Each structure stands twice: as structure tokens, then as C-alpha cells.
């Protein structure tokens, strides 16, 4: 917890983006999380990604459940909509909000406790529904807010701060997201912003359900030598399989693509994603291949990171439900209550 507020003064060379905002305008209250928490790096990466994309903060809806991770929406994009919901129920609230107003950018921040334990059912179904949102899990493998019990994503054999080993196999949220049909699945590490920021940019521009599992060490309870979610362990066991570079529409630069290792993905706003395969046997457009690669890596104790799977031009929730283009919350009374005659007609259809 920091009591000194962050000064408003900034570097004199800090640029304004296309909508006239500086990166500092995307900040919010100073974090009350423990000093050095990985979650704060994730918030900083979100701030950087949004400002570099020139996304309007007031068109964001930040949603979260309960936990350290779920506090973080208070610490980025101070001028956005937000809802800090019930434990594990962020996906339902996000679904409701998204159905009512499909024009906002939805970013949900959850944790391993919030998504892999109490909210696992919600997590599964929001993916199944292909809700158009960015779903971030700040994954530290521990219940930091209740003093460091193992969470469901903690690896078997990983020990607690006091040396007690974890007896259960972990839930791998990336594998679940792949298996349930998410159209954008990535894993990253809070300590590597060079990877995280481009991933977040791609996720914000992806149409459909974008899932990011971000290993984010808990400095207080799970950053010791026996932990598999510590800064040191993750850095030692990390394997980046696909590097993604976000290319804005204005950056029309010729990039030489090595055939077979690079791939362009067109995003719906005209920007591009340049994917570089760092592992020969990996293909980020092959869902089944990705699933087995991730599972094998899990068995080998390797933390696979990068944009693991991406599929553009899919039907998101609104496409599936065939709702009209106009956000429902903007419909007027005439459109929503067409009158007794119309109702009678509709009722007659079911007779």
C-alpha cells in the first residue's frame, strides 16, 4: 500500500496519442496491492496498450469478481465504466452488460481463484457463448487475499511458503479455453511487457472471446524457491512459441516474412497481427495441435507463452443470437414495445 499519491507531473516529452490523450490519462488510483505484485505490471501493460491504440477510455467497461486480481480495475483507466461483481460471477455480469450495449469494449479481470474455483462454471459458459470481450486471468497460483493457500491452478509438487507441497493436479485454463472454442487464447508473464503489451493490443482488437492467462507472481506468498509461479521459476521455464507483433493500419511498412515461420492475421479494424513462430512444430491456427502442444509442455514442466491460438471472422455472441446492430440499450420505447397488435401476431405464431 502506498500513501504517496503519484504526482501528476510527467515527462515533458510524453506524447499525446491520436485522440489527444497522454499515457498518464489512462491511469487511475495508485494501487493498494502489495509492492511488487505482478498484477500491477498487468495494469501498467493495459494502460500502455490502450494508450498506444488510442482507445477511448470512456468506451470501456471494466468488470471483475473478487480477489487481488479483481481489485486491479481500480488501478487502470480511471475514466471508464466498471463493475466489481460477486465472487466468480464476473462473466454473467459481463454477458448482461454486453447484451445491453454491444458497443463498449469489455475487459474482465479475474484471478485463478475467481475463475478456476468458485467461478469455473461461469468461465466455461462465457467461452461457450463466445462473448465479445477480453478475459484476463492474473494467475499467481495462490489465494493472496486470504494469506497464501494453494489455488486450483497451482502445480502439483509446488510448495507453499512454509514448505508444504500441493497434492493436486492443476487446472490449466489455457487448455480449457482451447477446448471450449475460444477464438483468441494467449499466455503471458507479467514480468515481460515486451510480450504482454502487443498481446493485449491484439486482444482488444479481436472480435470474439479473447482469453489471456497471465502468470503474475504473488510476491508475498508465492515467490519463493519451491514455487512454480515465482519470477525466477517462470523466467527459467518459459518458452515463447509464437511472437505476435501488432501493426496498426497507419504503419504500412514492408516486413519481410520468412515463409513457414511468419503469418499475417487481419484484425477487424484493418490492423494486422504478425505472428512469428519461434517453435517449428507450433501452428497458432491449429486448435487441436495447440491443445496437444500445451498439454505436452505442461507434462514437461515448460511454461508455453505467446499467442497460442487465434481465429478471426468467427461468430461472436451477438452474431449467434442475431441481435440487431444497434445496442439494445439505445432502442426507444417504440422499438421495444411495438404495441398490442404486433404482440398478438407474435403470439399467433406459436398457436
Amino acid at each position, binding site marked *: *500500500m*502506498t*500513501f*504517496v*499519491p*503519484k*504526482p*501528476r*507531473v*510527467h*515527462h*515533458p*516529452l*510524453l506524447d499525446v496519442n491520436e485522440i489527444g490523450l497522454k499515457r*498518464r490519462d489512462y491511469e487511475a488510483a*495508485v494501487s493498494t496491492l*502489495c*509492492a*511488487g*505484485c*505482478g498484477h*500491477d*505490471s498487468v*495494469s*501498467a501493460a493495459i494502460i500502455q496498450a490502450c494508450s498506444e491504440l488510442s482507445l477511448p477510455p470512456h468506451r470501456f467497461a471494466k468488470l471483475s469478481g473478487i480477489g487481488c486480481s479483481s481489485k486491479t480495475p481500480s488501478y487502470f483507466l480511471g475514466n471508464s465504466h466498471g463493475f466489481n461483481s460477486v465472487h466468480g460471477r464476473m462473466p454473467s455480469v459481463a454477458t448482461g452488460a454486453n447484451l445491453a450495449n454491444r458497443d463498449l469494449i469489455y475487459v474482465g479481470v479475474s484471478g485463478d481463484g475467481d475463475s478456476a474455483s468458485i467461478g469455473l462454471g461461469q468461465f466455461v459458459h462465457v467461452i461457450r457463448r463466445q462473448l465479445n470481450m477480453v478475459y484476463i486471468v492474473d494467475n499467481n497460483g495462490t489465494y493472496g487475499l486470504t494469506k497464501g493457500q494453494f489455488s486450483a491452478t497451482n502445480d502439483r509438487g509446488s510448495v507453499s511458503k512454509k514448505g508444504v507441497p500441493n497434492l493436486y493436479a492443476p487446472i490449466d485454463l489455457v487448455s480449457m479455453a482451447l477446448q471450449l472454442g475460444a477464438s483468441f487464447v494467449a499466455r503471458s508473464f*507479467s*514480468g515481460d*511487457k515486451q510480450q504482454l503489451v502487443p498481446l493485449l493490443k491484439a486482444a482488444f482488437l479481436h472480435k470474439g472471446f479473447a482469453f489471456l492467462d497471465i502468470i503474475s*507472481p504473488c*510476491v508475498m506468498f508465492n*515467490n519463493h524457491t519451491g514455487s512454480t509461479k515465482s*519470477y*525466477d521459476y517462470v*523466467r527459467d521455464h518459459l518458452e515463447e512459441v509464437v511472437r505476435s507483433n501488432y501493426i496498426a493500419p497507419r504503419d504500412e511498412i514492408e516486413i519481410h516474412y520468412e515463409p513457414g515461420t511468419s503469418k499475417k492475421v487481419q484484425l477487424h479494424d484493418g490492423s494486422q497481427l504478425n505472428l512469428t513462430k519461434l517453435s517449428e512444430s507450433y501452428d497458432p491456427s491449429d486448435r487441436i495441435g495447440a491443445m496437444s502442444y500445451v498439454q505436452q509442455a505442461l507434462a514437461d514442466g515448460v511454461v508455453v507463452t505467446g499467442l497460442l491460438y487465434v481465429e478471426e471472422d468467427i461468430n461472436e455472441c451477438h452474431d449467434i443470437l442475431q441481435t440487431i446492430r444497434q445496442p439494445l440499450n439505445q432502442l426507444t420505447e417504440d422499438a421495444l414495445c411495438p404495441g398490442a397488435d404486433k404482440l398478438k401476431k407474435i403470439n399467433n405464431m406459436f398457436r
Partner: protein
Amino acid sequence: MDTTNIFNPNYFHKVVDCQWACPAHTPVPEYIRLVAQGRYTEAYMVNWESNVFPGILGRTCDRPCEPACRRVRTEEKPVAICRLKRVAADHKGDISPYLPRNPAKKNGKRIALFGSGPASLAVARDLLPFGYEIDMFEKDPGGGGMMRSQIPAFRLPADVLEEEVDLIVNMGINTFYNYEITSMKEMLDMNYDAYFVGTGAPRGRDLDLPGRKEVSDHIFIGIDWLSSVAFGHTTSISGKVIVMGGGNTAMDCCRTSKRLGAETVTVVVRSGFDVMKASDWEKEDAMAEGIPILNNRPPKEFIHENGKLKGVIFERVQPEMVNGRLKYVPTGEPDVFIEADKILMAIGQENHCPWIERDIGIEFDKWDCPVLDKETLQSTHEKVFFGGDSAFGPENIIWASAHAHQAAISIHLYCQGKDVKRDRPPEGMNLISTRMGVHEWSYDAQHDPAERYIVPHADLRRSLKNIKVEVELGFDKDLGYSEAQRCLNCDVQTVFTEKLCIECDACVDICPMDCITFTKNGSEEDLRTQLTAPANNLEQDLYVSDELKTGRVMVKDEDLCLHCGLCAERCPTNAWDMQQSIVHIPQLGSYTE
């Protein structure tokens, strides 16, 4: 880049921009904190130790610290450092318990000081506690030198001047006032153990233009005229006055003329407004008193009739860059005639020692300045040392203090039979953590975004009537506190310990000025462009750590750091700590022997 050696005394000293810029290296942030705490006496003594004349300098210093202030780079206007010095002087209590005491027994060495200005007085202050017998020779009837004779009372009241001059004189100097030295040889024959020449730059420049001789009764040399005002020989000036020159003496001349009854006063300067030598605030104060400053007007001729001055013809020029050099080129417009009854010439001054014979071993260079060792201030005659304006030409009071400390060390070493160069005490530096708890620091880390406070002035109608009414009233305690809070505490350093860092990026994320980057090491040129924010100010160093676990290094651009301590607050492992750097500038007595 190589790992930064933060234990080099100059590394962190350079980060404290104000202290680095101050010739006497006054620990500015330290005394500003004391002012904020209401500990004026201590704040005064911190100043007194370094610059010897806090009350005088708090009103008259040239303030090299203020343009250097980091606040100019992070926001816009510097902290009003000079005025805070005055706050300490105005509100201090009894300083006598803090003053050095003279030993009961003298050490048997006799030193002669020539001139009683800031340089001589400061040398005396440094030497007296070591038991030296000091004889000070002064041509005027009182001590203080140019501080008394050239700075008018509306900028420096007599009581402030006398308090600080007398404090040193009464430490036990044998004063010889009204003593005009005519021969250095004679003085050397008096067999003192060492001599210090602090006679300043007492000769005002003159201008030989057509008509100069004919109207010499109406033309005065600025510093001589100010001096005769200071000693009460001149009490009025009548008619239309032209002040020629653009330095602080010109500003003092025009404002004094206005107070002594001149009908009109005009300042005419050969160069442009921006390049005038006068301090900005002196120019502002003169203009606020309704005195016009005409620029780019070099004088051409004095016009007179029957031995009476009529006025001056000035050329019209404009500044132009010719082959990379600033030149003043005639505009081709007709010359201007400005009516005048009196002219005050304030176009510069020179050090001038006609009383030093040129054949007694004291060499002079082609500009008629003594040949000196820059560090020791020793002349080519081993017993003779110089300081203040008489050393390297006209500077200011704070330079005189700085010279005096060096000269005093040299004189001491010389008198003790030591080598004045080799045996000089080294500079030193201490780092002391300011951490008092998890989130508590022994300094006020919070950044205050307030703008520079305006200092109140005396009512113009009243101050223009009486030369003794001080114009600037200074900050009261409340304003002083508020202004002190603007200080960024640049002497509380961000100290990084590599082996504790877990590279979590918390410091990078929280830094409001984007000073910190973790990156692959490279050449300085590469690093400066690859940081989170470009480090374009080449005068400010990059702080580069040793290699970290990931093979990267921490690079911090010292240029814009607010010293807010947030990096240390957000560091989970205390790899960052806020530590006060205390620079030890050698001074006689600052090291035990």
C-alpha cells in the same frame, strides 16, 4: 556502459543541481528542509558554513542555483532558493552557540588581508578558529567592500550588511580602515606569513567617445558614484539621467538615480535585452519602477554646448548571427539623440592592482590579471594568494566565498609547511537511508505541484522616495514554508542494490517521469535513445546498474527524477532505497587533522 560508481563524491553531487551549480556548493535542499521545519537558525548556519553571508546573499546573490534547479526542467519555474535563504536569515534566532570559537592561544602565524570585501572576510572566518593572527587593510572607513559601497540600501539594508560583516570582524580581526595600500613591496617587507589579496575589481570602465573630455563634469563612473552614495557623499542627482550599460551595476545606478531625485532616468544598452548581463529580476524590478531600458543602441557621441552636456547620440543596431557569431549590425535607420544632463557609466569593471609592483615575483597575464593556480589560488609568489574579483576578474559574492574557502585551505597548508596542492583534503560523500518505516521517509517525499510564489514588495511610492526603504520584503514564515515545499529534495537519492532486485517492474510502472528502464546494456548513445523515455539532456548522467539475473541492467535517467520515492515505496525487496547524499566540500576545519 560501465556500472555507475555512485561512491564517486561527484556522482550524486551532480544530481543535486542547485548545489552543483553553486560556486560554494551550499547544500540547498538541506537548508530548504530546515526552513520548512521552521528551524531557521539551523538553516542559517548550514548557509553560513558554506557561503558565509546568508543574509546578504539572500538578497543579492546572482543565484546560479536557480536556473539549474530541476524544477525548471520538470515544470517551469525554479524554487525561489535565494529568497528561502533570506527567510532563514530573517527569522533566525540566536546563532552564537553554533559559532566557532577562537583558541585562547594563537598559533603564531600572521596573515595580512587586503580589502575587506566578502573574499577577505571569508578567509578570515576560516582561519581565525585555527589561531591565526589576522590583519585586514581597507581603504574605506568600514568593512564589507563592494557589498557596502556598490549595493544600494534599497536592495541590502545597512543593518543586514553590518550584522554579518561585524560578526566576522568581531571574531578577532585587527582592522586597519582608511588604509590605502600603495606598495605591495612595503607590505611584503612587513614579513607576514602569508598575504591574501581580496581587493576586488575596483576600476569602472570608461568610454572614450567624441565629446567625452569636454563634459567630464557630467559623467560619473557607476561604481564610484554608487560608492559615494553609500558613504553619504552624494545625496542627490538632478535633471535627466542616462545610465549606460546592461549589468547589475547599471540597474543599481538607475534605481538609485530615481530615488535621489532625477527628473527622468533612461537605461541605454549596446546589446539586446536577452543578453544583458543584469539578472532577470534586477531588470524586472527596474522596469517595475518605470525606468525604460533601450536596447541595441551603442553610443556614438556626447553632445555639449558651452561645456554643458546636452545629450548623447546613439546608433541603431540589430543582432545578427555572422559566421556563427553574434554581431550587432547597423540597421541603417537614423541615429537617435537622447537628452541628458548626467551620465552614469556602468559598462563593466576591471581588477586593478597598480600598487603591486611588477618586479617582486607576482606575475600578471596579458589581461593584467594575476597568474594563479586555479585550485590553490596561489600566485607566482608563494606567500601571496588571491580571491574574489581580484583573482579572475569580476564575478560575484558567492564566487568570492568559494575562492575564500580554497585560499584559506592553501594558506593554512602553506603556513603549516605542507604542500598546498598535494595535501589538500579530498571531497567526500555519505549516504544515509531516509527510510523510517515501511512507508515513512525522513523527508517530505510528496510532490507539490504549486507554482512559484511571488515575493511581496514595498509600496512603490514609498520606496521611490527613500533610498533606505528595502524594495523586496521577503517571504514571511507561511510563504517561506509553501515555497520550501516546492523543493524536490534532489539530495535524497534513489540508490539501487542489484542483488536484491527481482525485476518485477514495479518501479518502472510507478515512476511518474518514466526515468527507469530495464534493458540490455549498450553504449551510452544507444541507451539514451532506447529508454522508456528518451534521455536527451546530455548534461545529466545515466545511472547504470551491474548486470541483473536476466542479463539486463537497470538504467535510470537522472535528468527528470522527482525524488518522490515511489520507486522505493513500490519495491518489494528494498532494492531501491531513498538515501540522503551528504557531499563534503573540503573547508578548513571540516576535517579533523
